[in-house]
């Protein structure tokens, strides 16, 4: 019977508020998600089946008896009589010796049970189906048979080797709860694959007895995955099909929780663009994905997903296509044109002309990028392969999420600016406008040799954003290795025949131009600094090649033990990073100059040394001693206890990424150290103390929404100040070596960009998101004015309006 049609306006308005469509019941998905429940259902059902004749008859009898009082009395009398007889028989005879309870095997071999056990009927049926080679019949029986019979049916299916039974077996194999090597469904699947690999025709006759077949299936099979190395060969070409020589190719695996592991050190392509490498895939799970990655100085990062089937796939014909690097610059603003800072801009990049499946690569490495808008609402995505299809999504608290249509912004050509385009989307409070603009900054220059002649060798020019506004999120630790984050977020170009270069698509900012040898990665000329401004978007620099000297740097612990895999960076230029070898050494080829070299390694304090200009090749190595720190482990959770994927940041080192379970391990600098923890999206954050409140418990950081401070900054005339700096700082209670308490001030001004503690000023107004957890001082300042500060103890998720903040003139401005 259908529901009556709505008769008045109330029915209609209620129907209109229906939240979403009627949910669709996908039993297969539910079954795959809850294999244990289905297993439990079968187990309990099997118990009922065996007991049913007895219990059903008793219940039926009881129901019949219950209807008549006379019958009730008769039953009661019979029960009493039975008890009396039972007691008398026990007292008359010796108790029989205890016997072990009958096992399933005992029941199976008992002739009496065999005659009535329905399992045997099913086994007989399975035998007949097997002899007839009836796979469909066996599959039907597979779904209805009792558990013991199921294993026999599975063995028969494996022996028949019909590939049509694979989906059913794979679904059951996924539900197997026992040890993997004992999975009968997996064994049957392997057997079917094996048979189909030898010959795809089903055997005409099966003369073996079922028992023999069962034994043969249950015998140990060779392991499904052998840990032999894979040999990958292939060629690297550009989009025109021209081989790319001297490109670096390496291999990585990626787990489901985006843990990256190097499978092989890089090799270089030869003059024909060919490469050959041995990949140790033995420890890589079959569910993990493997990739070949490739980079050279003139192209964006290229990658190729390797086939999942490592047994039969061909790895000797890998073709990696490299595209020119391009950039996308944009502005995120609301409908009134006000910039929105701290918005998370995520881009999904799919190189055109390539199958999508092979081009998927994990977050932050290649085809997925995430950057945040700066104080001016601007963002920059670089190192994007030209010709890619780009999808953007922009999210920000207080606004609805913006998702561009798939393939929006096709990047074509070598200078593929996105046309300025605006998209207005519905937001909760106001509309967000995502405006994509082309960056028109440009650095022209040339490289000359020592005699003033244009240099004609191969050189890569890298542009470092010295003020770290658009990118440069610093360093992070993943799998115990320090990684320069956002290393690809820099302009890159190469020389033409006349020794000239042009770095394009640059937004306004200050830049350092570094000339790097493409084969060795060494600097060949002193770095040049230049500025791109709105009024002067073009700049010109000249780099003079100077003689280089090999500088050895050694990183060791206080105990003298060398540090393997320490990250060394010169002057904080990501282009110049190197890792130490197992002996703790690293060799830089540098033009004579003074450099600050900083070493970062796991569970150590970053340490720095200076490379002096007069360094000679024969000089002893520059020694960097790092101080080892104890480790502190914990995890991030939300208020319901669910794990959070994010990072923690002790204030003297770099941020530590958590795994999918929210767990992290950090170097412990001192007792009760303060950490800033944040989830990936930036919606939950908190200052936490790195000390377990109760000994023996796990350290947990409960993240909460940040507090929001709003207000307006005015000068003493009441004129809004648009370029004031509003930030926060804290004073952390600490103990000095003598045990006296003191307040250690910490400035968190740098946090404005990276922590999504956004700040945007318009007519002097600001909005600042502040992590909770400790007492903080809000600070407003501007050159020429006296600073303003106020201590606050914010509560999570609360919004505080500070009203008008009047900055008094500084001493230099006073009349």
């Amino acid at each position: 019977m259908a529901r009556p049609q709505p008769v008045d306006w109330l029915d209609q308005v209620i129907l209109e508020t229906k939240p979403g469509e009627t949910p669709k019941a996908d039993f297969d998905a539910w079954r795959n998600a809850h294999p244990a429940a289905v297993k439990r259902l079968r187990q309990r059902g099997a118990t009922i089946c065996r007991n049913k004749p007895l219990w059903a008859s008793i219940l039926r009898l009881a129901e019949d008896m219950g209807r008549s009082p006379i019958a009730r009395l008769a039953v009661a009398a019979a029960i009493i009589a039975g008890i009396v007889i039972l007691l008398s028989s026990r007292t008359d005879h010796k108790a029989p010796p205890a016997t072990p309870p009958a096992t399933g095997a005992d029941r199976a071999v008992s002739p009496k049970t065999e005659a009535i056990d329905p399992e045997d009927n099913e086994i007989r049926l399975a035998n007949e189906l097997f002899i007839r080679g009836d796979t469909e019949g066996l599959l039907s029986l597979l779904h209805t048979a009792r558990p013991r019979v199921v294993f026999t049916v599975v063995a028969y299916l494996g022996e028949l080797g019909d590939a049509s039974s694979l989906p059913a077996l794979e679904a059951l194999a996924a539900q197997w709860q026992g040890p993997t090597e004992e999975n009968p469904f997996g064994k049957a699947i392997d057997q079917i694959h094996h048979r189909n690999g030898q010959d795809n025709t089903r055997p005409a006759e099966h003369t073996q007895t079922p028992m023999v077949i069962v034994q043969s299936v249950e015998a140990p099979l060779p392991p499904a995955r052998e840990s032999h190395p894979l040999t990958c060969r292939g060629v690297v070409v550009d989009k025109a099909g021209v081989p790319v020589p001297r490109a670096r190719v390496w291999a990585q695996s990626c787990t489901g929780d985006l843990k990256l592991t190097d499978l092989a050190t890089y090799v270089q392509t030869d003059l024909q663009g060919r490469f050959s490498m041995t990949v140790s895939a033995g420890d890589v799970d079959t569910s993990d994905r493997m990739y070949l990655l490739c980079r050279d100085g003139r192209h964006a990062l290229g990658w190729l997903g390797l086939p999942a089937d490592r047994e039969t796939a061909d790895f000797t014909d890998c073709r990696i296509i490299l595209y020119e690097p391009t950039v996308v610059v944009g502005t995120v603003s609301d409908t009134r044109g006000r910039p929105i800072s701290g918005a998370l801009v995520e881009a999904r990049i799919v190189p055109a002309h390539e199958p999508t499946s092979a081009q998927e690569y994990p977050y932050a490495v290649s085809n997925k990028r995430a950057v945040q808008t700066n104080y001016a609402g601007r963002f920059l995505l670089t190192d994007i392969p030209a010709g890619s299809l780009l999808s953007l999504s922009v999210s920000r608290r207080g606004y609805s999420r913006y998702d561009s249509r798939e393939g929006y912004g096709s990047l074509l050509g070598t200078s593929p600016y996105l046309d300025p385009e605006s998209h207005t989307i519905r937001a909760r409070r106001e509309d967000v406008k995502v405006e994509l603009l082309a960056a028109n900054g440009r650095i022209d220059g040339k490289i000359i040799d020592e005699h003033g002649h244009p240099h004609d060798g191969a050189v890569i020019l890298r542009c470092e954003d010295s003020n770290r506004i658009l990118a440069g999120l610093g360093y992070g630790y993943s799998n115990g290795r320090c990684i320069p984050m956002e290393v690809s977020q820099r302009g890159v170009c190469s020389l033409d025949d006349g020794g000239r270069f042009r770095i394009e698509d640059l937004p306004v900012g200050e830049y350092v131009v570094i000339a790097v040898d493409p084969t060795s990665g060494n600097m060949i000329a002193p770095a040049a600094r230049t500025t791109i401004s709105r009024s002067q978007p073009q700049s010109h620099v000249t780099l003079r090649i100077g003689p280089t000297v090999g500088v050895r740097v050694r990183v060791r612990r206080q105990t003298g033990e060398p540090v393997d895999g320490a990250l060394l960076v010169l002057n904080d230029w990501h282009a110049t990073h190197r890792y130490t070898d197992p002996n703790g050494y690293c060799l830089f080829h540098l033009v004579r100059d003074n450099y600050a070299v900083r070493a970062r390694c796991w569970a150590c304090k970053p340490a720095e040394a200076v490379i002096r200009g007069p360094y000679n090749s024969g000089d002893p190595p520059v020694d960097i001693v790092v101080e080892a720190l104890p480790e502190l482990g914990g995890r991030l959770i939300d208020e319901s206890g669910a794990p959070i994927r994010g990072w923690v940041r002790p204030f003297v080192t770099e941020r530590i990424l958590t795994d999918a379970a929210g767990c992290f391990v950090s170097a412990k600098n001192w007792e009760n150290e303060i950490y800033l923890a944040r989830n990936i999206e930036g919606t939950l954050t908190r200052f936490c103390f790195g000390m377990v409140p109760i000994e023996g418990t796990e350290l947990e950081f409960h993240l909460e929404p940040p507090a929001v401070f709003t207000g307006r900054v005015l000068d003493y005339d009441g004129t809004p100040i648009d370029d004031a700096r509003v930030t926060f700082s804290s004073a952390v209670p600490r103990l000095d070596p003598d045990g006296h308490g003191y307040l250690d001030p910490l400035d968190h001004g740098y946090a404005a960009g990276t922590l999504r503690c956004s700040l945007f000023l318009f007519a002097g107004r600001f909005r600042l998101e502040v992590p909770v957890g400790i007492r903080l001082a809000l600070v407003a300042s501007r050159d020429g004015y006296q600073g303003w500060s106020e201590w606050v103890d914010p509560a999570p998720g609360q919004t505080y309006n500070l009203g008008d903040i009047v900055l008094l003139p500084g001493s230099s401005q006073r009349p």
Partner: protein
Amino acid sequence: MAEERVVEAARRGDVESLAVLYRRYYATMVWLAYSILLSRDQAQDAAQQTFVKACESIADLKRADRFGPWLAAICRNEAHQLMRSRRQLVGPRGVEDLYAAQPDRDSDAPSLVRTAVDRLEPMYREIVVLHYYNEMDYRRIAATLGIAEHTVRGRLFRARRRIEKTLRKHGFPEGS
């Protein structure tokens, strides 16, 4: 009777019978959980967990003809448990607050109606949700919840009257 056979087969461990029941009751359980949680995502979680619990204890089900009410009871428990565990305050939202924050009344009429539905007592809300959102007639609602058909009719009548009263109080344009 047909459903009782299916339930009986499911009790014996027949997965296909469970699939039949799942397809028959899943949407109802989602909407029933929604009437408590007021969240579609959480309601779907609760509905799926309901069937997990049902698998574990269907063997203990004494009367196959009471499968619907039995499942509904599990679903309610799951929804309440989920609500407690996530500590979410999903009670009625303040109509006045919503109204005050939204000066454009016409454009927010659906929000107002939904809020009025959310403000109903759970006993009435589940009937409204099942009747309007899940498009169930009185007889099916009664069979699913294990209550009399006239009780369903009475609760729905009172629920409608309360919604109407709330809407009129806030000047909802009748007949629009």
